[in-house]
């Protein structure tokens, strides 16, 4: 039973991933922006000068990238190259390849965003659960509101304020970047380097945590409240179970279901959720890469990063689906 379910879920995953990739393939084509011309536009904007025969050059490179072919042919070719593990070239940064760009950015995004997402989830859910628990002191119950209010400040602005006060005025932490520039030629696996990276990651992480923890708390409190007063909780209390046991095993576990779903989604969206913060702090992750690619409609980079996020979301949602019955036995794979 479990195995067939797993197989069917995997089939669904493949189907979803394929659908999403297909949709993503055609979406940017709706935009009027021509990435090849956009590359020359970028050149013009930054230099005030551009080739005199722009349209001819655009055509030449359209042929190079195969953009002159009918869309369905391009689609088939792209799917074919994906199956070979080839993500193609960046149009804006030709001859740099998409695989190359992603390989450089991915570890940074995973490092920063995974840690902050987990931290935010843990802190927010914890606070939310405590806030919904009748035995919590009043100040704990009241904590959600200020956290939500903090989420009101756009992360970008919050980041700017942090940079201004913490980094610029107080000079406590670096203003941006991922490691001390000029000190390391390139990333390396050494203690000084990792410590340096950690020091640089504090402010971006703080911006991310502060600006989203309120939502987690809000969500968890909302669900925690519905668990409150369920007979099994009352029963557990009367059984004389240890309070912390009641809190975790009965309270948190029964209220956490939607939170876990949200966590899966948050994982999938770590690339896009970090865009502004990565951008602001000059953090060399996928977010700022995606941002630049979208603005320039650099198809293949969008596709490449899209592929990663699609896989991330789809897989994490599948994992949640598989974990659901463990968390909530009321949901079964089959209903008799």
């Amino acid at each position: 039973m479990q195995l067939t379910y797993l197989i069917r879920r995997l089939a669904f995953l493949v189907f979803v991933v394929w659908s999403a990739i297909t949709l993503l393939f055609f979406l940017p084509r709706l935009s009027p922006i021509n990435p090849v011309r956009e590359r020359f536009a970028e050149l013009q904007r930054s230099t005030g000068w551009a080739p005199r025969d722009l349209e001819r050059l655009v055509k030449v490179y359209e042929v190079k990238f195969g953009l002159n072919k009918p869309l369905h042919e391009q689609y088939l070719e792209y799917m074919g190259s994906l199956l070979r593990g080839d993500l193609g070239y960046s149009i804006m940064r030709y001859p740099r390849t998409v695989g190359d760009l992603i390989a450089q950015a991915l570890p940074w995004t995973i490092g920063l965003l995974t840690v902050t997402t987990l931290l935010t989830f843990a802190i927010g859910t914890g606070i939310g659960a405590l806030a919904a628990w009748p035995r919590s002191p009043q100040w704990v119950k009241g904590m959600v509101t200020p956290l939500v209010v903090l989420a009101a400040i756009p992360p970008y602005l919050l980041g700017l304020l942090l940079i201004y006060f913490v980094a610029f005025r107080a000079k406590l932490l670096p203003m941006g970047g991922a490691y001390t520039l000029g000190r390391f030629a390139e990333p390396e696996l050494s203690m000084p380097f990792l410590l340096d990276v950690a020091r640089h990651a504090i402010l971006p992480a703080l911006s991310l945590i502060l600006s989203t923890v309120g939502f987690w708390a809000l969500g968890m409190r909302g669900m925690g409240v519905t668990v409150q007063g369920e007979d099994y909780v009352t029963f557990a209390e009367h059984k004389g179970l240890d309070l912390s046991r009641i809190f975790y095993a009965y309270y948190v576990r029964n209220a956490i279901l939607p939170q876990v779903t949200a966590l899966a989604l948050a994982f999938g969206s770590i690339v896009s959720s970090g865009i502004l913060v990565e951008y602001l702090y000059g953090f060399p992750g996928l977010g700022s890469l995606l941002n630049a690619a979208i603005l320039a409609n650099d198809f293949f980079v969008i596709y490449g990063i899209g592929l990663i996020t699609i896989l991330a979301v789809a897989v994490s949602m599948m994992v949640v689906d598989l974990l659901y019955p463990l968390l909530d036995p009321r949901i079964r794979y089959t209903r008799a």
Partner: protein
Amino acid sequence: MTPLLELRAVGKVYTRGVFARERVVALKGVDLVIDESRPRIIAVAGESGSGKSTLGLLVLGFLQPTEGAVLYRGKRVDALRGAEYWRFRREVQAVFQDPFAVFNPFYKVDHLLQVPIEKFKLAPSRQAARLMMEDALRAVGLRPEEVLGRFPHQLSGGQRQRIAVARALLLKPRLLVADEPVSMVDASLRATILESLRHMRDAHGVSILYITHDLTTAYHVADEILVLYAGRVVESGEVEAVIRAPKHPYTQLLIDSIPWPDVSRVWGAAPMTKRDGTEARANTGCRFAPRCPAVMPRCWQVPPPTYHLGLRRAVACYLYEQEAEKFNPAEPQCMAAR
């Protein structure tokens, strides 16, 4: 005369999955007739997974059979429309096992009573509705002022189940499906609730399908009994007869394990093989064969047909093949099960 409700060779197979289908046979070849003119309490007994709850859901119209048909006043339940549908909906009611889950925690308990009054337009005014509710509550031994306006979690399990019974009363159904109505209720209240079921039969002429795993209460409350095993009716008849003289080896085992207040009886004298859930699928014949102390080679091949041993007695076991031949009424008038 058309019976109130009739099950004709009803079978239910659960399938799931869009690509890979997996089949679970919950019911197979069940016949049942409920006659309005002779309200009786019919117990459906069996262990969990025997298909007794599926039977209840089929009767209530919540599930559609995959084989055979469920007929209400001669018409298929799933084909009922308009006034006929509403009549069916009101006349076939239920009391469920969990006296808390039937209450929507969002509403006061009044909700459970108000909704049917409103939907079936049972009362002309709010006052009339209120009076109706109070009457129904009193009829099950509750004091309306103690329960009305309360939330479900503020009442005891017994109170809640009695409200559920009161709700059924209110609707004046012709058939009540009572799915394990006392299994989650304090022992002290069981009698009250069972009594109110009997009262419904006697005073209001309601037929009751009493679904239970507990033969004791079945024996006390029911007129007839159907014993289900793995989706099949293995034995049926007047409750007195079945309990006193069980025919089918499975029924015998069940009755053997009832703790009768009789010191001379030895419990569990007959050997009972542990059920592991796979044997039912493993053979094409009698589902009970793997556990049966009297199993014969043919049991493994073809499932035994139902043999009628009397006017109201039937059993599905080869042991009674010859006995059944002796009984050959011109017109088999087994009331409930054929």
